């Protein structure tokens, strides 16, 4: 079975190619695939009819219990025969119908893809496996409906169909998952009915699955997509929307009937919705004047009847289900194809224009006649047996059954009327007005309808044949108890026969008085139809409005508001957790004594920061910022962090330089007048944030410091790291991986910022000129040299005394900065002798290389390797530090020189 599906998939893939070469004749070749499948299924009939199902299984996702397992029993066989058989005819038909379409290849591909997916649905034994194919039918159906994609109606219809079926497909997924979990098995054939019906989630499962099935089969209230799907080319309507796709939901209901049947409201729900839909569909069908739409609405009716029959769960009802399924597919397929032929040949589908076609299209007319009789349920056609059994099954139910019988009588009467219109009005009677001269269509187009219609006739007459080989096995598969199956044309004067007679009479009456009936209906229906489709539009519209309403608060484009939200949420969350802990901490914290210098530097920092807020002049603000940074540096000094303090002060200096250089290119800005509320809000958020930060800190530092990392570092710094400056040893040895990333950040920053800071020295441009004072230049020269030397010294001694690569780099940068300010940037570049970016690259290479040394010795990355020539320990961490210096130095210089070179605006 899997090979069969794969075979059709293979045909799908070659279809576009074949179509390009062979045009419409490709259809004959492509039809071989479904034909082969059909013949294979026919060959399985004897085995299945004897009650032994065929099983195949392939594991797909064992961890989830999902497998590609297939099971062929009576029900699936019936469907499979329909799908592959009608499919073959449709492929042929499509080739002829769309012979001049330039995308015919794609059409074949989608059609065959759909066929494969549909086969998968009816053959699958695994719950989720079936769902996979189910969704694939939705997708291929979308592609087919939107085939004439230039027309907006096609696109809209396709979207509608996809969303309704695909969307509720997801409800089906939920239902299937729940079913698998409660039923203890993921396979249809091994689900346990008792446990499922006894479970508390049974109603939910039932509702979800019904949702999925009803939408797929266009039951009320989800029927609105089906008439719009008629926008698809006729072969699609003939195949999908009559014989196969809408039956998918019915298939699943039937498949699950043995498990759900008899429990709770399953039966009742099916009957109610089924009957209601049926009547609605029939009435709506009657009102149409376009042949295709007429058939479309009857396609809403029949699944409704099938659903209802399933719900009856009586012996006649279930037999009627299987019979009607078969009968309907046959005559509906035939009728649709014929209508397509009519359209193709005459250019119109409107009943008002049609008439007397039998002269021009005898073969099609004959097919339509046969099909229409089966549709009308007249003996000796198969449709007649279906109708008879339908009534018999309903009557078996008692009073409820009688009520539904009445409804069904009207429905079937209307169906008969419609059938009559389709045949009589179109083919007999006086000749209509045609846009084109009508002619009989080619073989590919009348073969399908003829074969199907004849089948409908033959099965009815030779009713033994289907009984034994097809219907029996199917009925056993869908009932939860054995059912005796016996088909017959005439069973004596039963109430069913009487009802049938009544139906026929009514139908004829409706036909003869069709105008009057139509007018009567129009009065009530005027509101009805508008609601259905318009509702959908309103729904979509409403969703988009809701979406816009939700999205707008986040789409204001205001950085301020984004920031405020971010900070606000952070503060609230942190305070919520930290506040109680902070209060605890305040009381119990073992805090170190307050040192006046530290306190003083804190105050200095704060003072500087406040200065930035309140001072007006830009220079003053920069000075205040600098003061704040200095204060922080002093703080670091007072808490015995000399390296940090030096770094902070150096960075502070350079930051101020950069800020000043950039700000001189920005104009003075007007103070924005802030409304009082905004100011208050800003203040509130800022205060809240400050509180949150302080609270988190108090909470985190509430207990004494755990662990012994600090002690371990200090203990091992000299023996293993060969350095007395623990902080430096951490940076270049213990946690060198951090530093490696950090110099990468700095290099990236320089490379990113430099193009934006300045576009580099243009050939004719003038570089930054230095100060013109000779006295200043003479003083700067030795000073700069001194700084460079100090930088190297700091690098060298950093491992044991305050210093190190970072500090060295910053000092060197300051030195070269002095050269640049004093002598111009060209001189500074001369000092460097290389592109600053290249220096950074070299620095990175050195640092990474120092780490690789360890790798070459079979140790982890960044392992230290030491040699001691003459008692002086030299090792890879020192090389690493050099790399750090080069990288940071190069990066800072890169940014600085670009900034200095930019021509003044």
């Amino acid at each position, binding site marked *: 079975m899997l090979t069969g599906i794969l075979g059709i998939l293979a045909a799908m893939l070659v279809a576009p190619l074949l179509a390009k070469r062979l045009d419409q004749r490709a259809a004959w070749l492509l039809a071989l695939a479904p034909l082969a499948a059909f013949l294979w299924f026919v060959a399985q009939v004897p085995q299945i009819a004897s009650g032994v199902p065929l099983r195949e299984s392939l594991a797909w996702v064992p961890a989830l219990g999902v497998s590609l397992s297939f099971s062929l029993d009576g029900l699936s066989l019936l469907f499979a025969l329909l799908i592959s058989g009608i499919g073959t005819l449709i492929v042929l038909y499509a080739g002829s119908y769309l012979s001049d379409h330039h995308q015919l290849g794609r059409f074949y591909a989608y059609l065959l893809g759909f066929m494969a997916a549909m086969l998968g649905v009816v053959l699958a034994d695994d719950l989720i496996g079936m769902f996979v194919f189910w969704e694939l039918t939705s997708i291929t159906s979308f592609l087919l409906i939107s085939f004439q994609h230039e027309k907006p109606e096609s696109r809209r219809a396709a979207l509608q169909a996809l969303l309704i079926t695909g969307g509720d497909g997801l409800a089906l997924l939920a239902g299937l998952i729940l079913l698998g979990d409660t039923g203890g098995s993921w396979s249809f054939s091994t689900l346990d009915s008792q446990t499922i019906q006894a479970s508390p989630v049974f109603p939910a499962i039932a509702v979800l699955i019904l949702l999925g099935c009803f939408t797929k089969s266009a039951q009320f209230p989800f029927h609105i997509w089906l008439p719009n799907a008629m926008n698809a080319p006729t072969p699609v309507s003939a195949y999908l929307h009559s014989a196969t796709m809408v039956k998918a939901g019915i298939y699943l209901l039937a498949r699950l009937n043995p498990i759900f049947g008899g429990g709770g409201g399953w039966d009742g729900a099916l009957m109610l919705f089924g009957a209601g839909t049926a009547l609605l569909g029939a009435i709506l069908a009657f009102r149409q004047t376009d042949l295709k739409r007429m058939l479309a609405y009857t396609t809403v009716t029949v699944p409704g009847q099938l659903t209802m029959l399933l719900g009856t769960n009586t012996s006649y009802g279930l037999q009627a289900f299987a019979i009607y399924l078969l009968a309907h597919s046959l005559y509906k397929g035939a009728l649709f194809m014929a209508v397509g032929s009519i359209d193709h040949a005459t250019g119109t589908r409107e009943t008002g224009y049609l008439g007397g076609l039998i002269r021009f299209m005898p073969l099609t007319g004959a097919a339509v006649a046969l099909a229409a009789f089966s549709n009308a349920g007249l003996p000796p056609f198969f449709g007649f047996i279906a109708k008879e059994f339908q009534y018999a099954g309903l009557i078996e139910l008692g009073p409820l059954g009688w009520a539904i019988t009445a409804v069904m009588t009207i429905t079937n009467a209307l169906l008969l009327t419609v059938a009559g219109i389709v045949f009589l009005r179109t083919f007999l009677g006086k000749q209509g007005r045609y846009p084109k001269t009508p002619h009989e269509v080619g073989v590919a187009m009348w073969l399908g309808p003829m074969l199907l219609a004849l089948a409908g006739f033959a099965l009815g007459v030779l009713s033994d044949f289907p009984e034994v080989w097809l219907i029996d096995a199917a009925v056993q598969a869908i009932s939860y108890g054995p059912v005796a199956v016996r088909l017959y044309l005439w069973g004596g004067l039963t109430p069913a026969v009487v009802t049938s007679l009544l139906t026929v009479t009514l139908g004829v009456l409706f036909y003869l008085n069709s105008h009057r009936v139509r007018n009567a209906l129009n009065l009530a229906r005027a509101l009805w139809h508008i609601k259905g489709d318009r509702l959908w539009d309103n729904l979509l519209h409403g969703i988009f409005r809701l979406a816009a309403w939700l999205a707008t608060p986040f789409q204001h*484009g*205001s*950085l301020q508001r984004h920031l405020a939200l971010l900070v606000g949420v952070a503060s609230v969350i942190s305070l919520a957790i930290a506040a109680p802990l902070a209060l605890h901490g*305040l009381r119990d*914290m073992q805090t*170190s*004594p*307050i040192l006046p210098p*530290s*306190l003083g530097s*804190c105050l200095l920092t*704060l003072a500087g*920061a406040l200065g*930035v807020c309140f001072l007006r002049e830009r220079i003053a603000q920069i000075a205040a910022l600098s003061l*704040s940074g200095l204060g*922080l540096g002093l*703080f670091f000094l007072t*808490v*015995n*962090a000399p390296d940090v303090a030096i*770094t902070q002060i150096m*960075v502070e200096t350079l*930051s101020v330089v*950069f800020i000043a250089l*950039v700000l001189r290119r*920005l*104009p003075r*800005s007007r103070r*924005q007048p802030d409304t009082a509320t905004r100011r208050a809000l800003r*203040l509130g*958020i*800022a205060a809240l*944030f*400050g509180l949150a*930060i*302080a609270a988190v*800190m108090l909470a*985190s*530092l509430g207990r004494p410091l755990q662990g012994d*990392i*600090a002690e371990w*570092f*200090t203990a091992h*710094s*000299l023996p293993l790291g060969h350095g*007395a400056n*623990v902080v430096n040893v951490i*940076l270049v040895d213990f*946690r060198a991986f*951090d530093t490696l990333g*950090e110099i990468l950040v*700095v290099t990236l*920053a*320089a490379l990113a*910022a*430099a193009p934006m*800071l300045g576009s580099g020295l243009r050939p004719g441009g003038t570089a930054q000129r230095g100060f013109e004072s000779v006295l200043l230049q003479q003083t700067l020269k030795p000073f700069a040299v001194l700084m460079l030397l100090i930088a190297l010294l700091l690098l060298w001694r950093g491992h044991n005394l*305050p210093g190190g690569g*970072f500090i060295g780099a910053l000092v060197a940068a300051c030195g070269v900065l002095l050269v640049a300010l004093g002598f111009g940037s060209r001189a500074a570049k001369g000092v460097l002798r290389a592109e600053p970016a290249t220096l950074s690259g070299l620095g990175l290479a050195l640092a990474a290389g120092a780490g690789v040394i360890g790798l070459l010795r079979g140790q982890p990355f960044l392992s230290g390797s030491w040699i001691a020539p003459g008692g002086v320990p030299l090792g890879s961490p020192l090389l690493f530090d050099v790399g750090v210096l080069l990288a940071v130095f190069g990066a800072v210089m890169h*940014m600085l020189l670009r900034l200095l070179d930019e021509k003044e605006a």
Partner: protein
Amino acid sequence: MEIIAAITTGMLAAIGIWLMLSGNLVRILMGVVVLGNAVNLGVVASGRLGSSQAAFTTMEGVASGMANPLPQALVLTAIVIGFALLVFALAVALRAHAEHDSLIADDITREALLPAPDLPAADAGEIRT
């Protein structure tokens, strides 16, 4: 001392955010610096502050009351990274002002939500990254 540090950090953070919420690019950048300072202060304080000498060992062994070197190393990294970020932020501000001729952050960022411009015909065949 940790309590003082916590209070200072909190106040600095508040000032930093106050500046960043001001809407003016220059003040935002200054706010970034202040906020960075606040965080750095917090990082150093996380190692506890009651030390009596800096983290330098000698051959004789580890003295007591030595400062916690780990947060110091961390904050060193953070300071340098913060500097790099600051310079980049300055560069972006410079460029943004050059393009938009405004220093009001919101006026600039609002433009990102305008409809996408159509690609010029001369671009056919190129991929611009």
